[in-house]
Structures are given as C-alpha cells and as structure tokens.
C-alpha cells in the first residue's frame, strides 16, 4: 500500500466512523482479529486522476445494521436499518475515500470517484494480510487500499 495514502486512510477511517456513524473506534487487538474463515460483507471504490487506486472495507453483516441505524438516527430493530445496511457501508467508504485523497495529497488535485460497489469475496484473504483493522463498537472492520502513481 502507498505509505501516504495508507496513513491518510488510517486517520480518516476512524474519523468518518466516529463523525458520520457515531461509533467508538479504536485499533483492533491482534487477538481479536477474525479467523481466516470469516465471512464479512465488503464494498470497494476506485478513483482516477493524478493517481489511480482502489479502497475496500470489510465488516460483519450485523455491523451494517448498526451503521445504517446510527446514520439514519433510528433503532437497530427498525426494518429500515437492515434494508439500508449495504448502502450505508458503500456511503461510508465513499466518505473515507474522498476525505483520504484530500488528506494524502491536499486540496489541489481533482479526482474522479467511481460509484461504490459490493467487493469480490475472493479479494478478502489478501486484504486480511496487509489491511488496517479497527474495532468499531466491538465489531471488526478491515480497510485496504491500493494506489498506482
């Protein structure tokens, strides 16, 4: 992973989860990382411009409901929270990518962000080995980014 972008993603991902979804976020302890047979939901978003790259987020399906409920200001048992979960994950990623690009390269460059999509599960194992893990309200969340200058 590109060093500047990785550092930006680590700072911004925590800030976005706290500010947009009102979650308590801290680094995930090594012993709390999920097993290799973990089956999360993932989203990915690519960008182009002065650099090209992709960022992905992976987390428990249960966490999507909490994420959507917090962003919408509704209870977790509201059916609207379950329905909005995947959309909430994609939008959180959108905010993290947009803010990370500015954090890494400043406000000068203009990037074109693609539309966030559900990530291919086959990409998970490599992301687990070199991604950035956080604990968000007792749920593991994994971030990964790749960048080509």
């Amino acid at each position, binding site marked *: 992973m590109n060093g500047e972008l990785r550092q930006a993603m680590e700072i911004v991902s925590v800030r*976005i989860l706290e*500010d*947009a979804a009102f979650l308590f976020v801290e680094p995930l302890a090594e012993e709390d990382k999920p097993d290799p047979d973990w089956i999360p939901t993932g989203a990915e978003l690519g960008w182009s411009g002065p650099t090209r790259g992709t960022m992905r987020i992976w987390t428990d399906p249960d966490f999507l409901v909490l994420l*959507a409920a917090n*962003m*919408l*200001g509704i209870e977790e048992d509201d059916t*609207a929270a379950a329905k*909005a979960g995947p*959309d*909430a994950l*994609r*939008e959180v990623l*959108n*905010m993290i*990518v*947009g*803010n990370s*690009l*500015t954090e890494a390269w400043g*406000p*000068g*460059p*203009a*990037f074109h*962000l*693609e*539309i966030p999509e559900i990530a291919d599960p086959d990409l998970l194992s490599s992301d687990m080995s070199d991604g950035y893990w956080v604990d968000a309200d007792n749920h593991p969340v994994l971030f990964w980014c790749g960048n080509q200058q």
Partner: protein
Amino acid sequence: MGYTVLVVDDSETIRGALVKAFGMAKLPMDEIIQARDGQDAISVLRERWVDIVLTDINMPRMGGEELVHAMKADSAFKDIPVAVISTEGSQTRMDSLRQAGIAGYLRKPCKPEEIRDLLHQVLGDWK
C-alpha cells in the same frame, strides 16, 4: 411557512440522514423532496417549484456537476439556488462548481448546524 428542498443523492442513507439533520437543526421545512440522481432531479424540477437544491456530485446517470450545468442553462431553473454536499475536497472542483454558479458547498460528513448555516446563508432569513 417553510421551505421546499430537493435533496439529490444516490445513497438512500444519505438522503435519510439529511432529512434527519433538517429536523435536528429545527429548520422550517414545508416539504423535502428526494431524487436519486441528476436526471431524477430534472424530472422533479419540471413538475415542482423548490426553494433550493442540495446535490451530491458522484452519482450514476447524471452527476451533480452535470445537474448544475443543466439547471443554469435552462431559463426555468437557472435562478433556483444549488448547493453541493459531497465527499470530495478538491479546490479545483470547488472553484469549477462556483464558476458554474453553485451557491454553497459542504463536505460530507456534515453536522446539522452546518446544514442549517448553509441554508441560512443561501436563503436568508426564514420565511
């Protein structure tokens, strides 16, 4: 009497969060209309009067920049204020949008009071 606002964003979650923020900021709203992209927004504008359009940039079919240009090129819509609420922080893009005629810009995630201040700045005193 309050305002009629058109919120344009492809994310249902963001549209819902903005509606919630309007309530938290105690903004005087008559109606909040939602559209999922620029094309939907243009369809709404052909049928309804709105006081302000709040739009995302990055959307399928027709994005926010295209929407701003389409509105400013149409005599029926050119005087409706448009503000952008987006994740993007490029000064180049903001300058380009301001030249195209946007009335304000907020970066996601934004707080209810920032939305209130933006609407107050663009629309002036409440009706």
